[in-house]
């Protein structure tokens, strides 16, 4: 296996960021990253963290799907687990950006792997990540972990990948690193 670091994004004060011009000369892509939102409110399901929406090749049509298992909470505030699944979505949406609260230094840890990103099949990816915050003392969100998969019902080679928040902007310290993986 050979690894090539292709690019790094460090968005701050903006709600989205993109890798573009991705070469098709590797076998797989891997992204390691960390994110935080400056939003102070909730999103649709009242959770105090933001969904990060992932799209390929700037395609905003309803051709994405995602499913993930999640763990949410602490033994003192109540815990929940379950499964979330979306089909015919306009993006791969994963809850991996904790909101703004009095401590701004708690980011998520995120990993994404896209095999055969330049091949002629429908594109699939594994996406997973988590964050832990001092909920009780400063009002941050519960710790959350997800493990899931996403897909883009398109046979085009992936040449760009974007990350966008539902609400708010990425804060300084957010980063995404893109690697090309060669299997030979």
């Amino acid at each position, binding site marked *: 296996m050979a*690894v090539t670091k292709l690019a790094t994004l460090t968005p701050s004060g903006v709600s989205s960021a993109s890798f573009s011009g991705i070469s098709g000369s590797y076998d797989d892509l891997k992204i*390691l990253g960390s994110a935080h939102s400056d939003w102070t409110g909730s999103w649709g399901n009242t959770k105090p963290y933001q969904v990060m929406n992932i799209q390929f090749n700037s395609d905003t049509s309803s051709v994405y799907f995602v499913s993930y298992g999640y763990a949410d909470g602490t033994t003192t505030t109540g*815990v929940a687990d379950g499964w979330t699944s979306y089909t015919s979505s306009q993006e791969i949406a994963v809850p991996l950006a904790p909101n703004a609260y009095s401590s701004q*230094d708690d980011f998520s840890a995120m990993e994404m792997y896209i095999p055969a990103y330049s091949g002629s099949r429908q594109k699939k990816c594994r996406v997973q990540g*988590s964050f832990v915050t001092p909920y009780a003392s400063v009002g941050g969100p519960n*710790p959350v972990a997800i493990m899931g998969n996403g897909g883009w019902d398109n046979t085009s080679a992936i040449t760009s990948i974007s990350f966008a928040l539902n609400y708010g902007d990425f804060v300084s310290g957010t980063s995404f*690193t893109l690697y090309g993986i060669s299997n030979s």
Partner: protein
Amino acid sequence: MADFEIIAEGTLSSGASSISLTSIPQTYTHLEFQLSARGSVASSSTGSSNMRFNGDSGSNYGGVDGYVTSGTGGVEGYSLNALTQTYYTHPLALDNWAANIQGVTSWIIPNYTSTSFAKQLYRTGTVADTNSIYTLRFGSGGWDNTAAITQIDILEPSAGTEIMAQSSYWLAGWA
């Protein structure tokens, strides 16, 4: 420097109460770690080994964990500052289980050299025995400290026990 490098690796020739990875180079962006291990504990439940960073034994850790164990799903979690070590980081096979079985865990720590932000890790782990003990766990770990990570200690499964011989590990850096 290559864009992916093994920083440290090893196989225990005898049982050890901990594995210490010291003087971690500060020249990478992210860390990835993998452990295949067995604990010297007798139990019908899955074992666990946790971690500390930079020798910090204060109440500065937390984590949440989703799991499926022998057919039952669940979740456990602790806020940051609730624990003195990470939570359920490495599922382990145990000494009274079938021979030669080890638990396997992989985790990442993004931006481990940052001096501005608390450290987070994400990990997945699994172990399966021959007598219907099996688990798949995914979860988080947090260390509420903005220091760059220079040392990682993999701790004993429980007081007085060991990570058993032939357990192996590697730590890698991503540029």
